[in-house]
């Protein structure tokens, strides 16, 4: 018999650090100040906001949050196969742009979509700018220690915990932050495993 995990002992509806639906991810995001500051500058004609950073820092979470803020469709380029067609919208958000071929990125840059928000592991600013777009770039660097605490509190509340009903020890959070630094995904996985252990 599997031991009862921490989250069940605390009567949570589910493990707080499991996978999220996109709308939950958007609602629980702790956006970085740099991205929030760039948002008002996005209203220019043919502009691109490029979110750059290594895997796991929160680019997709920022995109989900921005999709809600801008009320625009979000497209994810698949690992295999052709890129999906761009939706008919003034603003489009594109995740995993680095997966698109050079020709596909060229087509995206030259499309009639007015505002693009893209996320990629490396910058494609030169290619996007060469298509006549104004490129704004934000580097996503994960969460600060305070940001991580805030994010963890939101996730725990989302799982149905009453205030103070389920505490993740600060020492654990600080240790994970020191160990994984900007890799929020790795921190989430470690916290998921911690919640699956018996209390």
């Amino acid at each position, binding site marked *: 018999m599997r031991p009862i995990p921490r989250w069940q002992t605390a009567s949570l509806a*589910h493990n707080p650090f*499991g996978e999220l639906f996109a709308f939950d991810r958007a609602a629980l995001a702790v956006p970085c100040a740099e991205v929030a500051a760039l948002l008002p500058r996005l209203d220019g004609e043919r502009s691109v906001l490029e979110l750059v950073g290594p895997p*796991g820092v929160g680019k997709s979470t920022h995109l989900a949050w921005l999709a809600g803020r801008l009320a625009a469709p979000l497209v994810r380029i698949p690992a295999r196969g052709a890129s999906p067609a761009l939706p008919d919208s003034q603003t489009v958000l594109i995740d995993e742009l680095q997966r698109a071929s050079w020709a596909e990125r060229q087509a995206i840059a030259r499309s009639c979509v007015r505002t693009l928000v893209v996320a990629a592991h490396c910058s494609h600013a030169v290619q996007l700018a060469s298509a006549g777009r104004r490129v704004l770039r934000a580097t996503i660097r994960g969460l600060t220690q305070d940001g991580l605490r805030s994010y963890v509190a939101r996730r725990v509340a989302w799982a149905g915990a009453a205030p103070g009903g389920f505490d993740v020890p600060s020492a654990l959070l600080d240790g994970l932050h020191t160990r994984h630094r900007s890799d929020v995904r790795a921190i989430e996985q470690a916290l998921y495993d911690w919640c699956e252990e018996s209390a």
Partner: protein
Amino acid sequence: MASASIELDQDGVIRGEPLSGRLHVRAERSESHTVSVEVQSLIHGKARSLFVYAEEALYQGPLSAGETRTFPFSIRPPLQIPSHRGRLFTIEPRLAAVVRTPGSEPRGAGVQVVQQWLRATTPAELHARASPAAAVALRRVEPGGARRVTLKPGPPLDASEARTGVVVALVVLALGVVAGGLTVAVGGGWLGPNPWIALVPAMFAAVLGLAGLWALQLNARRWAASAKIGVPRVATECRTHAGAEVLDVRVALASRAAQLRGMAHLRVIERVTRDAGSTTLVDESVVFASSAPLHPLGPGEYGAALSMPPDPEVSLSFDMKKAEIEWQLGLGFALPVWPDWERTLVLDAARVGVTRETATVKVWELA
């Protein structure tokens, strides 16, 4: 915006029987509302998804602010809904009252969901509580009813792995011989004008040759063991009996070996595949594992009785885009002197013969 609550006519329900009750909706604002009840499976954990098995639309139209309406409903959950509790993901069937207002996404943000979990439970558990609903449910349980699980073996077991290993080892050995020959021919041999120049490729050739010889002897022995043991065929049907919780695995084996010691292992694993941008993350966790010695049943035939976990709901094969439950049967044989022979079969586990009568062995409880 709206608030909703579900009131059910019964405390327990048998699979396939209709669920009836009333859905109360209170509108917070004067706007159009779409109200329905759904039987859903919510998958949460390292994968997240939602399946809708049955849906009954109750109302579509305007509700004024503060207005409370009651909608009677009767919805029939399907006979087979996957249910699973694991370390990586959980599949929870639920009865959901879904209230959509303008601007809410079809299955996403803004949709008001009130839920009642549907939990599979055993008749004994229900009996222990002795609630009137449990008694109603228990009357429908057939004594001695058996839950049958069919385990169909996947690709046939064969010795191709060892055969491929022999071929690879021969190729590596041949490369070593060719590299050695070239060293002698081009470098002038060990006593040439500059023996140090020849030493490096000679050592490379020697390493290749030794690796080839080692791999050859290992794989050749495995191949020989496979040939000696033969090609096992796993019987197509295994059964779990209610109460006994024993899975009988029969392995029919045509073997030329006089002495054979074998073990059978049964594992149910859950697996989650996640797209992590630059890579695909695969997590695996063993839900349960058991092993038992294979004993001779007759000429060239072996069997094993593998015990099942006490969990009332043993998950069957389940596959979606990101998460799956897989049943694996491992067979291992040991022959004196020869290397151990091990193979793993992926089993297509499916519940069969679940009719309204036999399904009553498991009763859905409203939690």
